């Protein structure tokens, strides 16, 4: 049976038997970087197409249908257009920061990729504080947005960036607390341990009601953190033209656009890892034969399937819910999500101590 673990093992052995250890390590770094960039490009192309199709079908439209069968080459054509477009820098802009900002956003997205387990034993970096690392790095992307908004020398951009800051500061809290509730159940911060602890069932089933509440809070908070509708205050097409990336064009704009979709993928991957067991197949308690059948599906398929399911959920939100105003957004966090998630964490702790989970 094909497994990504075998492929990486083979490459690792071949490199170490043909080169000295330093060279082999450097080559591995380069390969990992290259595959991360490839993954990003593919994700950007496919997720944008998926978003447009999902939006179209939910609004009883057809969506892209001209370029290629069912319009699958539409996003490729769009990317080509963006590459050929002139990247304009406004006169009043702070040139260095303006040019740096899209790369900061992209690099942050790339850093979060490190501890995510894509398949069984297929992980860039297995650290014992994976969850802490994730929550620490994911709040850094607002710095890139801030740089973009500030350096543009444009009132709309600055307003968008400020809103984005307010949003991240508040929603980071409830996202952190809901992640913490899973850490309470597992007793470990390592991504690998969290996945292994879901061997006999995913946490969303095993820890029943509190896990469900924290999953709902998590999905709301990450929608806000990735600046997507209904929480797209930073972009706010209808009020701020495009918020922090009003002044960006061409490839720099494409990087922001790509980073948005990469971030969606990453937060959904985290959600799938914490609540739906990452690459762990669907197991029910002690049904040995059923579990064995489920094991035959490759672990990478499980991971990507769950992640795409969550991405679909977030897209579903976007095309259903009305947008919030900035004060309503902060009300929702501080008056509703934060108290509920604190109470839920308490509940989760009681469940964990009393052993009421399965």
């Amino acid at each position, binding site marked *: 049976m094909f497994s990504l673990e075998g492929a990486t093992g083979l490459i690792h052995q071949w490199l170490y038997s043909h080169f000295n250890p330093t060279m082999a390590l450097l080559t591995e770094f380069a390969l990992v970087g290259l595959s991360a960039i490839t993954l990003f490009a593919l994700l950007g192309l496919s997720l944008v197409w998926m978003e447009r199709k*999902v939006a179209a*079908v*939910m609004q009883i439209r*057809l969506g892209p*249908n001209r370029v290629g069968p069912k319009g699958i080459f539409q996003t490729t054509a769009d990317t080509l257009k963006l590459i050929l477009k002139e990247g304009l820098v406004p006169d009043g802009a702070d040139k260095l920061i303006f040019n740096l900002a899209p790369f900061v956003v992209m690099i942050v997205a790339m850093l979060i990729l490190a501890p995510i387990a894509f398949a069984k034993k297929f992980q860039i970096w297995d650290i014992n504080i994976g969850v802490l690392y994730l929550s620490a790095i994911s709040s850094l992307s607002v710095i890139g947005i801030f740089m973009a908004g500030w350096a543009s020398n444009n009132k709309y951009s600055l307003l968008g960036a400020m809103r984005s800051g307010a949003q991240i500061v508040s929603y980071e809290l409830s996202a952190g607390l809901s992640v913490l509730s899973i850490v309470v159940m597992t007793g470990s911060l390592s991504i690998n341990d969290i996945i292994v602890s879901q061997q006999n069932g995913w946490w969303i089933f095993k820890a029943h009601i509190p896990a469900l509440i924290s999953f709902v809070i998590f999905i709301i908070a990450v929608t806000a953190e990735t600046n997507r509708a209904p929480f797209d205050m930073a972009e706010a097409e209808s009020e701020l033209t495009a918020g922090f990336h009003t002044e960006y064009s061409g490839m720099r704009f494409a990087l922001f656009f790509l980073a948005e979709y990469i971030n969606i993928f990453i937060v959904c991957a985290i959600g799938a890892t914490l609540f739906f067991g990452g690459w762990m197949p669907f197991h029910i308690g002690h049904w040995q034969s059923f579990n064995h059948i489920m094991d035959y599906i490759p672990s990478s398929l499980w991971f990507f399937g769950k992640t795409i399911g969550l991405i679909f959920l977030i897209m*579903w939100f976007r095309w259903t819910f009305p947008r919030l105003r900035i004060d309503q957004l902060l009300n929702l966090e501080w008056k509703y999500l934060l108290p509920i998630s604190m109470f839920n964490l308490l509940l989760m702790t009681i469940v964990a101590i009393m052993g009421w989970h399965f």
Partner: protein
Amino acid sequence: MFLTNYIKEVYGAVKSLLKGMRMTGYYFTHHKEIITEQYPDNRDTLKLAERFRGEVVLIHDEKNEHACTGCSACEIACPNGTIKIINKFDILPDGKRKKAIDTFVYHLELCTMCNLCIEACPTDAIKMAQTFEHSVFDRSKLTKKLNNEGSKLREGVE
């Protein structure tokens, strides 16, 4: 009391959001009715809504007769001077003078398709047509004469 209201609010919010998601989810799973018109491809079979307003036309029947008495109600009703009616006076056999239209001038380039002229018309002589491919290379082509050559008022319309 506060706590009950709080829980009620959260419950109501979650319920209404789920209701919305059910609606869009229904559309997502029942992919039958599509409102997109693939216009240049389906030009022959294109179906427009009944109340679609393309341009104002003067209705002529097969005997080349229309119902316009030249009362200028449409011209007065028009908010931006799209319609200009030029009248003439026919001399009837008994020596009376009868008002009739000479030219019904319609400036398509000024028209906003507001439908006020059609509502103002006492004899229902004009209506909104479904045509919409109006682009031309010369602006003067958009100034139209709506009454046909040699047409006259239908008998019995006052």
